[in-house]
């Protein structure tokens, strides 16, 4: 738990506390005549009343200014970052992927990078100057890197002096911020982080007398009134920066005389209470500069990211001039909607700056010719990753109070891989469209969710909460709890394989019809998906073909309690009903929970709680908390190995063989399909050599989706894997496991020379010890001779 120190700095309080009420009764003039006194009191009482009310009102405004000013300045949302990209020779990164990362980081493409945050590319060679960056574990200075690529792999990396570099960590892309609903997103900047020219611009354009007035500039007001009268409309404002700040801090945008008066009063109070520098800093951070859906863009720091995807100190003259120009009317001069108008406004600003001698003619000319340089609008709400941020918020809430998250300016370093997230979103939305077309399903009704995580360590790489991934809303990856159908079967089979004295992969199971009596006297008779009985089947085949009846028989034999206990060890801590139908997936889980179960399989029986956060840093750069890699062995490596070989068979020749249309056989991925009654839910869960992924398809109204696991979710899963460079699943054989030749028909021990014999993995000592008849045959010299001849 972090020892979290809240910033409790209080505003400097002047000794005086507002205006004192003037009602001070004089006792020295007692000898005055009664008549005179009553006449006076008739005059004084209303005056005193008015003064008292004004005084109280001013006190109220003063209080509002102080709390508001301080409160707002400290309400800095948590900044959320994705994973840093690790660059090293041999890394599977293509030049295109690196370009995409540079774009996320706001690096600009140039012909040759002379300044930080810039890069150039010549085919398979990229040169970049990185920004300095404060990681959780320390400061990294800006680097010059010369990168060579070959066949989608980073092949060489040298610094400016040609020295080979083993490993460089790029800065982390910002993926969002966490702010309270009533608050605004913001990227606070200190006066020292702001380009000097920007403050000079602000003062010369908005408030020339800023350093001399006391909050209100009468001359400017008169000048504005005169200009407006002359023009016959509002063309010029007379508000000082302080008045604008008051408006932004406390008041609505509605225009009225009362508001104007309030604004002026507050401006006077602000000037009394705070220094010019404090006011300017607040202004820079509070001024309204645009709108992004429901998110208001306040402050230059955020606006710089919003319009240019770059920190403020990297903006050049024309970009700064554009921002200053926008102040007058953020929607009127929205550079994305009205680029021409915004451009004219910018050039007007540049003209004024030139006339006032702030920029030279040459600077002005060059700046007016520059393009606006506004980036395409990012995804809505300041984050393209609402589902992932939702997970971050929930995991943070275990350790932090909500107000810490939204107001303390924490820096949260997460595990999100924007590249994988992007590919997962695309795979999901494109494939859903194709599925609806292919199966003639109503358009737009299918929903889906996906989770991708690292097998080892359980870092969550991508979360997609619905087919419109960029929109915040119902997060199906975390909140859609649906029956998981056959996805439960590997748990049942693992529970069995953990009893090597009783079960191995070739143990015969009966697939003949079964009737299970419930406690309430009801009778349940599960059937296979194909409505056939398959007689006696080896255990591995029952899982590969997802036979229901054989599974129920196995599960009842193993015992529901064992299955339930194992489910708990695999990370499902919600109460699950111990009913026989559980064995066929009558348990409702979210895709994230299913991913947790399969992560343990993928990691060979070692569970790592799925994590979205690596580290948390305080606004001042101090370390608050690390969420370390943890493992705990919840199932023996040998049993999990047998299960995983079986799950590879599911893909190779079982219910998931359709994956071969997406992935090479050489990848040997493992997985399981899941389908629920009336085709309401279509599931697929599985893993490659480095990642585990779960996909669900269904409908929000819980009507049939019309797809089996293999027809639906499997295809999205295959698409996701195909797009994200899967690593082959090579399972290291644990010491406890031996390979033994078995005759698959009889289930007896065989010999490499027996026909049809296959090598199966067994927990040592659990393999069948009776020889199949073919072993004797194979030892027959005649048949050996035959085999030799036809080799």
């Amino acid at each position, binding site marked *: 738990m972090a020892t979290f120190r809240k910033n409790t700095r209080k505003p400097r309080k002047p000794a005086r506390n507002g205006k004192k009420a003037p009602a001070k009764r004089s006792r020295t003039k007692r000898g005055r005549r009664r008549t005179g006194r009553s006449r006076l009191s008739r005059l004084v009482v209303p005056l005193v009343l008015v003064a008292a009310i004004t005084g109280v009102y001013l006190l109220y405004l003063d209080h509002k200014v102080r709390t508001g000013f301080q409160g707002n300045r400290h309400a800095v949302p948590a900044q959320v970052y994705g994973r840093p990209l*690790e660059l*090293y*020779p*041999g*890394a599977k990164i293509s030049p295109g992927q690196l370009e995409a990362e540079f774009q996320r980081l706001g690096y600009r493409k140039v012909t040759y990078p002379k300044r930080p945050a810039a890069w150039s590319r010549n085919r398979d060679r990229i040169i970049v100057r990185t920004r300095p960056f404060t990681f*959780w*574990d*320390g400061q990294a200075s800006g680097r010059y890197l010369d990168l060579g690529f070959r066949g989608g792999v980073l092949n060489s990396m040298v610094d400016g002096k040609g020295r080979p570099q*083993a*490993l460089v*960590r790029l800065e982390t892309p910002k993926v969002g911020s966490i702010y309270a609903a009533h608050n605004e997103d913001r990227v606070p900047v200190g006066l020292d982080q702001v380009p000097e020219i920007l403050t000079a611009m602000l003062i010369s354009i908005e408030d020339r007398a800023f350093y001399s007035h006391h909050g209100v500039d009468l001359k400017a007001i008169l000048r504005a009134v005169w200009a407006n009268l002359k023009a016959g409309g509002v063309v010029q404002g007379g508000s000082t920066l302080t008045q604008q700040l008051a408006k932004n801090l406390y008041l609505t945008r509605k225009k009225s005389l009362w508001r104007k008066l309030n604004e002026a009063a507050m401006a006077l109070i602000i000037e009394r209470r705070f220094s010019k520098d404090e006011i300017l800093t607040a202004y820079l951070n509070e001024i309204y500069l645009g709108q992004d859906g429901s998110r208001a863009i306040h402050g230059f720091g955020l606006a710089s990211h919003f319009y240019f995807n770059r920190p403020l100190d990297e903006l050049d003259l024309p970009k700064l001039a554009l921002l200053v120009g926008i102040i007058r009317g953020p929607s009127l001069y929205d550079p994305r909607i009205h680029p021409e108008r915004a451009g004219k406004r910018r050039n007007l600003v540049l003209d004024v700056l030139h006339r006032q001698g702030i920029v030279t003619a040459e600077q002005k000319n060059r700046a007016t010719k520059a393009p606006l340089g506004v980036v395409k609008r990012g995804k809505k709400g300041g984050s393209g990753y609402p589902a992932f941020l939702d997970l971050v918020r929930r995991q943070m809430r275990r350790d932090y109070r909500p107000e810490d998250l939204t107001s303390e300016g924490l820096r949260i370093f997460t595990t999100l891989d924007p590249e994988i997230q992007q590919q997962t979103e695309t795979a999901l939305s494109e494939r859903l469209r194709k599925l609806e077309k292919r199966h003639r399903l109503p358009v737009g009704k299918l929903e889906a969710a996906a989770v991708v995580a*690292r*097998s*080892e*360590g359980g*870092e969550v790489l991508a979360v997609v909460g619905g087919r419109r991934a960029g929109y915040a809303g119902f997060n199906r990856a975390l909140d859609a709890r649906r029956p998981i159908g056959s996805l439960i079967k590997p748990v049942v089979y693992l529970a069995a394989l953990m009893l090597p004295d009783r079960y191995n992969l070739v143990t015969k199971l009966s697939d003949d019809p079964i009737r299970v009596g419930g406690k309430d006297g009801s009778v349940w008779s599960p059937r296979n998906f194909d409505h056939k009985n398959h007689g006696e089947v080896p255990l591995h085949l029952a899982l590969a073909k997802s036979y229901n009846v054989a599974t129920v028989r196995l599960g009842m034999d193993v015992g529901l309690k064992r299955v339930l206990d194992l489910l708990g060890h695999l990370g499902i801590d919600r109460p699950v009903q111990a009913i026989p139908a559980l064995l066929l997936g009558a348990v409702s889980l979210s895709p994230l929970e299913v991913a947790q179960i399969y992560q343990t399989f993928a990691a*060979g*029986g*070692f569970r790592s709680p799925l994590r979205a956060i690596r*580290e948390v840093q305080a606004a001042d750069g101090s370390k608050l908390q*690390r969420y*370390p*890699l*943890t*493992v*705990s*062995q919840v199932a023996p*490596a040998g049993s999990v190995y047998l299960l995983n*070989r079986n799950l590879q*068979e599911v893909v190779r020749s079982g219910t998931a063989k359709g994956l071969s249309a997406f992935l090479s056989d*050489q990848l*040997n991925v493992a997985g399981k399909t899941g389908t629920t009654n009336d085709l309401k839910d279509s599931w697929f869960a599985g893993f490659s050599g*480095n990642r585990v992924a779960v996909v669900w398809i269904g409908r929000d109204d819980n009507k049939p989706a019309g797809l089996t696991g293999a027809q639906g979710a499997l295809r999205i899963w295959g698409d996701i894997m195909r797009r994200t460079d899967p690593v082959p699943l*090579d399972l*290291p*054989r*644990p010491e406890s496991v031996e*390979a033994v030749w078995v*005759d698959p*028909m*009889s289930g*007896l021990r065989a010999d*490499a020379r*027996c*026909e*049809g*014999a*296959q*090598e*199966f*993995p067994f927990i040592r000592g659990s393999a069948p010890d009776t020889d*199949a*008849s*073919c072993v004797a*045959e194979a030892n027959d010299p005649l*048949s050996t001779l*035959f*085999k030799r001849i*036809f*080799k």
Partner: protein
Amino acid sequence: MMIWLIVLALPIGACSTPMRSSPAMRSSSSLPDDRGGSDQSRKGARTSAYEPQASAAIAPQYSLPVAALLEEASRQEAAKDLTAAVGSVERALRIEPRNAHVWHRLASLRMKQGQYGMAVELAAKSNSLAGGDAELVRDNWRLMARSYRAAGDSDSAKAAERKAQAYR
């Protein structure tokens, strides 16, 4: 060729174990009889056989970035910044998640931090990936023994020591 094989397989197949169907004879090329065989034959075996050959032990060799991170971890450890060292080793594991030696390194750092339970789990994880690297397996059991002992569980410590002895 196929027909030849089937015709000649018939008399052999007929007298072997009882079968419901008569599968084609395994072609000899798919028989994984050369254990240390070339990549080509191993790949073939992997797709046709249920159980491929056990993969070779992971050599105690680190790629350059992993080596750089482990060096950094050593520097951080020497500077008594164990938290940072753990961070560096975790970075290395993201690059080589199945390197048993890196898992062992993490286990030893956790032990040094006094997180004995976690150290034991991490050493077990390392063992599960160690393949035939007996020396590493022995080191892991020793680490577990020390962790158990430090945590006051002398029975488990003894059991782990016995395991370590077996890898002499």
